[in-house]
């Protein structure tokens, strides 16, 4: 209906800015993601990836700029955006005191999956990630890999148009990682679901993503296919391309969960004056 839907971009970001007090985390980035594309969003720690993802997923309000996701603007129609997204966060977001099935059920109700197909859909997905035989076990008895799989199953439950994966393979062994990507690619092919992910494993990005954006210091410094980035930097692997683009200096280590929470609290309080 509007201009945005006229082309085949499912995500359009223009001049997006996020400032925390005097610190600019995201500094006027613009990019598009095509419908059905697998898109990797790379960058060193503190580059602004997570902040960008938070704005895309309605968890943070941009300072300025525009986002359109699946035809919805998060500033105006949060629920429209929220319904379109499946999200697997960087940190686990399951309820450990509930069973796998109950976690799925909770999600299904919140995303208004019709009652008559709820159970069958949950079953289908738990089988898909091979957790059906553990459906009645409390999540706190699950290993890290099982939790990830459950989160992916949960993210797919309501047939999202776009799947966000924020470092989904962090801390997983190669077997689980491979498995996870085969699920995601499978759904991507079958349902034409767009996938937007971040990772620190360059070979993973190179293998899975159709297009890659590299972010550093709040800006997008390169964008293209894996091969394009390699050619552009005159390097043989994406890892080398990445290092050549972002330099060899080690960035501020990722803060602990609590630190991060404190920081969020400060940001948030700052916003409310």
């Amino acid at each position, binding site marked *: 209906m509007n201009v945005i839907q006229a082309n085949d971009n499912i995500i359009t970001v223009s001049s997006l800015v996020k400032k925390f007090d005097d610190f600019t985390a995201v500094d006027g980035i613009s990019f598009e993601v095509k419908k059905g594309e697998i898109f990797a969003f790379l960058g060193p720690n503190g580059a602004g990836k997570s902040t960008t993802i938070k704005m895309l997923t309605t968890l943070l309000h941009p300072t300025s700029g525009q986002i359109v996701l699946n035809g919805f603007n998060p500033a105006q129609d949060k629920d429209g955006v929220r319904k379109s997204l499946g999200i697997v966060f960087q940190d686990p977001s*399951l*309820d450990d005191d509930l069973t796998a099935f109950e976690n799925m059920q*909770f*999600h299904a109700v919140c995303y208004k999956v019709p009652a008559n197909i709820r159970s069958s859909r949950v079953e289908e997905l738990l089988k898909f990630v091979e957790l059906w035989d553990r459906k009645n076990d409390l999540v706190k008895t699950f290993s890290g890999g099982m939790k990830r799989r459950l989160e992916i199953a949960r993210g797919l439950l309501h047939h999202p148009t776009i799947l966000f994966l924020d470092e989904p393979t962090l801390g997983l062994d190669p077997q689980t990682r491979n498995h996870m990507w085969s699920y995601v690619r499978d759904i991507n092919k079958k349902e034409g679901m767009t996938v937007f992910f971040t990772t620190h494993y360059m070979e993973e990005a190179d293998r899975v993503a159709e297009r890659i954006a590299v972010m550093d210091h709040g800006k997008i410094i390169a964008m293209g296919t894996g091969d394009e980035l390699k050619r552009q930097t005159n390097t043989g692997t994406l890892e080398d391309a990445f290092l050549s683009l972002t330099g060899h200096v080690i960035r501020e280590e990722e803060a602990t969960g609590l630190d991060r929470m404190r920081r*969020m609290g400060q940001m948030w309080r700052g916003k409310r004056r």
Partner: protein
Amino acid sequence: MGGMVWSPCPLLNFQSTQRHKDLNHLTNRKARQFVNVIYIMWLRQLKKYFRSKSRIIGSLGQPLLFLLAFGFGFGAIFKKAGAGNYIQFLAPGIIIMSVLFTAIFSGIDLIWDRQFGFLKETMVAPVSRLQIMLGKTLGGATVAAIQGVIVFVLTLIVGFRPHDLVLLPVGAVVVFLVALLFTSLGISLASTMEDMQGFQLIMNFLVMPIFFLSGALFPLEGLPKVMDVIAALDPLSYGVDGLRFAFIGAQSVFGFGTDLLVLVILTTVLLALGSRLFERIQA
């Protein structure tokens, strides 16, 4: 002309009722979905509560201690002063106390949700923040009310006897209102906090005064003027007063109608405030 006007009429009528039905159907479905989301959040709280046996048992220690230490400790003096049986007087206060503490602690559940990441799952869901607030508050309040019932049984064992069984449901209403009020307070406060330390402060500087100044432990009659004013400003006073009225047939200090009215109004205000605060949470 007449024929032309007449013939489409039934059709139009049919269409309009059909549309009406569709609309009805749609609003029904919307309403059901709205309630479903609140229900699933409520259910989650209850499941978590019943799965933490240690929490249930642990939370009985304090009321029991209060009943024994205060109830029996001050019982003799209370009687000598001509004020009657202290256990009878104290029991409603202790029931309300445990409801207060459990209700406020719902706020801690919210902080846990934030620390363990589950809050994010809720915040990115396409549900209104009012629904989240209502679901969490109803869940927490139900848990607090159940806790109140358990402590009520405890008081019966210690020797408390309600004066009129017919008024027990009235007491239950008071207990649930107190539970709702302080759950929404706890959740509203917790939604502005990122860690437990902040909540500890609330415990010491808000919840303790609310409890001790409410008349849960002593009669509100014959107090210095300052204390009268403070007690009247303390929302818990109305809960204690209301429950005492229902359970031991005591002369209500504020009037039972006033008790209910104050509790209902404050609960509504805090629920509205809570969903406003939820709206502002940026995970």
